[in-house]
């Protein structure tokens, strides 16, 4: 609706003696205010000041930001809410692991080896008599760390490469993108395995391996977004007032291409957790006794026949985490770009 139409509507309402509601006043407020002041002065000369104040109170609310709209769409999506709940539970578990876990993850009880789930050990015990519930709870810390840090590394490096590539184009773009093509020619998990094999096992190395393997995806997404924004008028305007390239990319371009990066980031955390668990499962990732879920599955595999609980609970923990992140990621995609909704 155009501002003129709004004003006509408001004038019409006032002519009929109806006080317009704030939400009707989406047009030019100055005109409305002026108009109402004049009508009030003519009909009730003594009450001008009060009425003038009243008019001020009906100026339209500030326009909602894009993110408020996204949030509104997101919380309307039940699946996304379910995903968010799972992630919040996971985060709380990781933060309060010391209070939630009944035992320390390293506490062994050799008299209680491979006990089935019972009232003391809800998820049973492992081959060293360690409480699996406690280990799964502490494991959430490891998975969250790996997931977020690996994605952080990939986002920063991929984001810089993608921005430079998209903003400058030409030879530098060609070199960076061909390098990304090469990395993409190796299936992600295999690249992570090769990097982990070179760096050796350990938490930090897993983060680096998984992070590097995910760089090309972010580089491509950021490059595509930067390319689509580079020639927009607001970028021209920033150039005209003398902003340097770094400022233009970081202050003007990147904030405008956050939507696909956030979606990919959320789904990326899920993939990173999966990849890290996979690496630990084949013995290249995080090593025992650190309670990483993939590493726990790796040991549990040997005892699958007589201690199923050793596999099931860490496996379910990975599954629910990935499930939650996927639900949230899908929800974010729909909320950030409703056109993509199938």
């Amino acid at each position, binding site marked *: 609706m155009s501002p003129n139409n709004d004003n006509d509507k408001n004038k019409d309402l006032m002519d009929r003696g109806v006080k317009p509601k704030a939400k009707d006043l989406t047009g030019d407020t100055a005109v409305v205010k002026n108009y109402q002041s004049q009508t009030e002065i003519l009909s009730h000369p003594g009450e001008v000041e009060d009425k003038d104040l009243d008019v001020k109170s009906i100026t339209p609310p500030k326009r909602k930001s894009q993110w408020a709209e996204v949030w509104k769409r997101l919380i309307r999506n039940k699946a996304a809410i379910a995903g968010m709940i799972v992630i919040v539970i996971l985060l709380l578990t990781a933060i309060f692991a010391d209070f939630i876990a009944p035992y320390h993850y390293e506490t062994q009880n050799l008299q209680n080896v491979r006990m089935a789930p019972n009232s003391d050990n809800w998820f049973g015990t492992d081959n060293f008599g360690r409480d699996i519930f406690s280990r799964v709870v502490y494991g959430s810390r490891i998975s969250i760390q790996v997931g977020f840090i690996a994605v952080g590394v990939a986002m920063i490096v991929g984001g810089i490469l993608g921005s430079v590539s998209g903003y400058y184009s030409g030879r530098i773009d060609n070199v960076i993108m*061909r*390098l990304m*093509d*090469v*990395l993409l*020619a*190796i*299936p*992600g*998990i*295999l*690249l992570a*395995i*090769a*990097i982990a*094999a*070179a760096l*050796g096992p350990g938490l930090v190395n897993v983060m680096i391996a998984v992070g590097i393997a995910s760089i090309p995806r972010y580089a491509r997404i950021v490059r595509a977004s930067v390319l689509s924004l580079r020639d927009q008028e607001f970028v021209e305007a920033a150039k005209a007032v003398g902003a340097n390239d770094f400022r233009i990319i970081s202050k003007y371009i990147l904030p405008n291409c956050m939507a696909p990066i956030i979606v990919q980031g959320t789904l990326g955390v*899920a993939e990173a957790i*999966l990849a890290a*668990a*996979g690496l630990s*499962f*084949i*013995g*290249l990732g995080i090593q025992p006794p650190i309670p990483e879920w*993939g590493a726990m*599955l790796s040991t*549990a*595999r040997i005892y*699958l*026949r007589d201690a*199923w609980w050793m*596999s*099931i609970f860490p*496996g379910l923990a*990975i*599954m*629910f985490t*990935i*499930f939650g992140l*996927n*639900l949230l990621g*899908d929800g974010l995609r729909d909320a950030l770009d409703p056109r993509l909704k*199938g």
Partner: protein
Amino acid sequence: MLKYIGRRILLLLPVLIGVSFIVFTLMYITPGDPAAIQLGEQATETQILQLREQMGLDDPFIVQYARFARGVFTELDFGRSYRTNALVFNELLSRFPTTLTLAATGVIVAVAIGIPVGIISATKQYSLFDNAAMMFALIGVSIPNFFQGLVAILIFSVWAGWFPSSGYSTPMHMILPALTIGTSSAAMITRMTRSSMLEVIRQDYIRTARAKGQKESVVINRHALKNALIPVVTVIGLQFGYLLGGAVLTETVFSINGIGLLMVNSIKMRDLPMVQGGVLFIALTFSLVNLFVDILYGFIDPRIKAQYK
């Protein structure tokens, strides 16, 4: 069309050289002296130095890479195993059929489930079937293959006793691994088929087909499906590649003696030429599968064919 195929093959070459460079670099920076690894713990300093010279390990990095790349690209010489001294390429080739069969059966299962479910979901959008299928697909995407494999072994092999839990010698051995990797890929294919179908059935030409009184089955099968499946083909190709890469995990779970398990064992024993060869071999297969999909794309999408006429 030949021009298109030629162009795709030409584009593949630099990528493969790049892959070989990255893989070689990764193995080069891996700690440990290859000569010492090969000779074992009893080797003397002199023996190690001699072998280092013989292997050309004292040459500059770029010379070593050039020698490796020339061997790989001109004679398919991926080097020799530190452990068995066998030719890496022959070892990989002997295990390739197993890995390929595993990935192929997985893709067959994935396509057999994913496409029909995706089509029904799209034609009955927001129905009970659609919601249930999408929920299963999301769960399918969320379960790690190796965990799904363990659960499958536990239920169908340990508890029910229907299938063997490890090995890959008979068709019965192939069912559990194929179902395990197939169902998670099926989830991806279902989601892609559904969204692609939904996009297509909103197009004007589908409305036209309905308006002229075509039966719904004809509209879906003859008009919509043909166009909707084009992007699905890409996903199938990609899934095939991921399954080849993921073979490392699946083969470990089911103790299948393919390239994946060979690589895991080689990493543990620091048999670097084997690891290097394995990564390169799978990347090459992955690239060839993608090339094949691109070419297939050219055949099934007349718009691409028209560009290169």
